[in-house]
């Protein structure tokens, strides 16, 4: 697969001119080999060498940008098949399925009700998938209705004339024209090129999809996405997995090195529970755009949570913002509990606290995104860090002077009491699941 630095070095002028930003041609070659810089950064490299090298040094799966402004998204660019091998990079996006006969404004309004923040990430349906149903005028009208709505548009249209008309309406928003197949690809490439939009490729089966994609690449167009939707659930899964696996194999097959579109409205029509099940499968297994009937909280709460989990970088822990989180209608007199800013800890602890029904202020201080014991061992959760945060952030806002600390750092009790005059420090149980009973008991005994 990857070229070695020396192979690349052979093609450089070996003059160490530094115009590429690297001190020597050898250093530059090593960086190119690692994928850190692009070969075209060398101004003196010959055309021939460039052609030979850019193919071999290109990433196996292309990153494709679609949409504009806030609705611009990068798809693809993955380098591994499982997140533990490195990390997944471009999270799948959700598209709402629309046809011209629908009350599009109403469907969009309904889907737009889901728009919330989860650990610093905006959760909403980012795209719309507008399907051509045979009437070009109606199609253009439908596309007009979704233009300017802050959503990336996917034009599902194999009719060349209708596609052109629709692009005239929305091409400034960089939609995806999903409509090339074995019969029309040459014309569709021209249309996509002229409008400068990404072209979606469809096929009757995996071989047809492969051949059509290869033919389009031959025409010189490589801004593509693959519609990996098959005739049923089984075929869709098979195409989606095999395409991704082929391009990320040891000997990458770059013809399949593009992001995918999976249309659940086609393979599981009007079946919300099945669409949730399949969307979960395709979040894990290689869907880049997932098309569904709509977005609502039942779907979103599960699917966005799953997506956020799976697309976290294993090397970077998920963190929540430090601060005071009042729960169960807590006010300034409610008891204070503290734990670390590791997102999983926060979610588990806040969930149990909510279940207890006891009003309390959950205080999260900066612990480097580590769990309680790890943070304590690394010195990021200490009597000093806790007391400093309490004095600076909590004392001005909260009147209660009772502080509950995690059971796993019971050893900190004495030190914290010494550093926080006037506070009573209570040690919680070791496990979050025991919090409900613990808090209810404290409340029943009148201790909080």
């Amino acid at each position, binding site marked *: 697969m990857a070229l070695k630095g020396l192979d690349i070095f052979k093609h450089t002028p070996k003059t160490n001119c530094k115009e590429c930003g690297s001190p020597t041609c050898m250093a530059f070659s090593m960086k190119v080999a690692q994928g850190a810089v692009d070969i075209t950064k060398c101004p003196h490299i010959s055309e021939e060498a460039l052609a030979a090298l850019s193919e071999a040094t290109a990433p196996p799966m292309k990153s494709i940008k679609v949409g504009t402004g806030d609705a611009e998204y990068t798809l693809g660019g993955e380098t591994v098949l*499982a*997140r*533990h091998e490195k990390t997944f990079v471009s999270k799948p996006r959700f598209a709402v399925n629309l046809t011209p006969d629908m009350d599009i404004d109403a469907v969009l309004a309904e889907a737009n*009700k889901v728009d919330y923040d*989860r650990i610093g990430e905006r959760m909403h349906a980012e795209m719309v998938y507008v399907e051509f149903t045979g009437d070009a005028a109606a199609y253009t009208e439908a596309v007009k209705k979704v233009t300017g709505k802050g959503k990336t548009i996917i034009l599902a249209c194999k009719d060349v004339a209708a596609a052109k008309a629709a692009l005239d309406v929305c091409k400034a928003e960089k939609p995806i024209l999903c409509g090339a197949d074995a019969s029309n690809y040459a014309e569709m490439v021209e249309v996509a090129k002229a409008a400068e939009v990404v072209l979606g490729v469809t096929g009757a089966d*995996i*071989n047809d*999809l*492969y*051949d059509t994609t*290869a033919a389009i690449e031959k025409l010189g167009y490589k801004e593509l996405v693959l519609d990996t939707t098959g005739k*049923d*659930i*089984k075929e869709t*899964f*098979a195409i989606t*997995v*095999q395409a991704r*696996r*082929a391009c990320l*194999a040891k000997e990458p*097959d770059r*013809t*399949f090195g593009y992001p995918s579109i999976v249309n659940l409205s086609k393979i599981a029509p009007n*079946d919300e*529970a*099945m669409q*949730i*099940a*399949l*969307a*979960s*499968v395709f*979040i*894990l*297994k290689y869907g880049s755009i997932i098309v569904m009937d709509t977005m*609502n*909280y*039942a*779907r979103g*709460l*599960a*699917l*966005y*949570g*799953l997506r*956020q*989990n*799976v697309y*976290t970088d*294993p090397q970077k822990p998920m963190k929540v913002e430090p601060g005071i989180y009042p729960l169960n209608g807590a006010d300034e007199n409610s008891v204070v509990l503290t734990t670390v800013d590791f*997102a*999983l800890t926060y*979610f*588990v602890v806040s*969930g149990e606290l*909510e*279940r207890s029904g006891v009003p309390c202020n959950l205080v999260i201080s900066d612990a480097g995104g580590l769990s309680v014991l790890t943070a304590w061992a690394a010195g990021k959760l200490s009597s000093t860090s806790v007391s400093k945060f309490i004095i600076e952030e909590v004392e001005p806002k909260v009147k209660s002077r009772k502080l509950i600390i995690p059971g796993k750092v019971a050893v900190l009790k004495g030190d914290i009491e010494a550093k926080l005059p006037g506070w009573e420090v209570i040690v919680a149980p070791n496990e979050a699941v025991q919090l409900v*009973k613990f808090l209810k008991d404290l409340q029943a005994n009148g201790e909080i």
Partner: protein
Amino acid sequence: MPFNGKSGKFNASIGTVEFGCGEKAIKIGGENVLPFYTFDAPIENAPKVGVMISDLGLEAEPAGVKAYYEGCTTMADIAKKAAAMPGADFVCLKLEGADPNGENKSTEDCMTVVKEVIDAIDVPLVIAGCKNVTKDAELLTKASEVAQGKNVIILAAKEEDYKGIGAAAGLAYNQKVGAESAVDINLAKQLNVLISQLGVAPSNIVMHVGTATVGYGFEYVVSTMDRIKAAALSQNDAQLQMPIITPVADEAWNVKEAMASEEDMPEWGAQEARGVSMEVSTAASVLASGSNAVILKHPTSVATISKMIKELM
């Protein structure tokens, strides 16, 4: 030139475990490909779906679950109805009433329920404890004896109590041992080694490698399962080739998304739909990551997941 896909078939395969008895006995495991990769090689045993019932009855269940069991007055009724749920392959009886922090029912009382359920159904059974280590040691040892001859899965033996439960279930009474670890490939392997060292055959062990609900650190579950299947299949690690069973219902119905009432979160919409969604999404995800069986409770979830498995096989 057509697409030349290389097969991802492995030389090693997951072990096969059979539980239940008679015509209704079921097999899980046996595949030599990643989950649902039937395009690489046929998967002999489709993943299975179990229905969870509790010795505490139906009181705490959501309306849709209660409605399904309407008219059931005894545990025998409930068990029969669970076994007949469309899409169900087996039943899981959870003895949560034994929990010393809850009802603290005696082991004898619980065994009455076990007997009642065993006599009522002919589909395979999984018997789950109350998650209190001390109580489970006694409870599940006894349950292994009471269920003798029924070839049930005892869920579960953990690092703290594997000796008693493993020996009773796996050696003395010929049941299947569920080996429960906490979302870590090394802990899972270690427990399999320990239980094997007791003398329990690998074909009598299934793994419960721990789970979470989607959105709640679920990436650890995905990566643990991905790595276990990779080790089992590509490195032929015999100590990780046991099939995986994952109880989903308890976790999924206990997160805020499923628990918050509609009054508290009006914009979130119907509470039960959210619970079903968390259960379905979590179940589909653990299946896609390598679980050979899941345990659910809502009829919609059971029907959906069982249909999804059929479609993908």
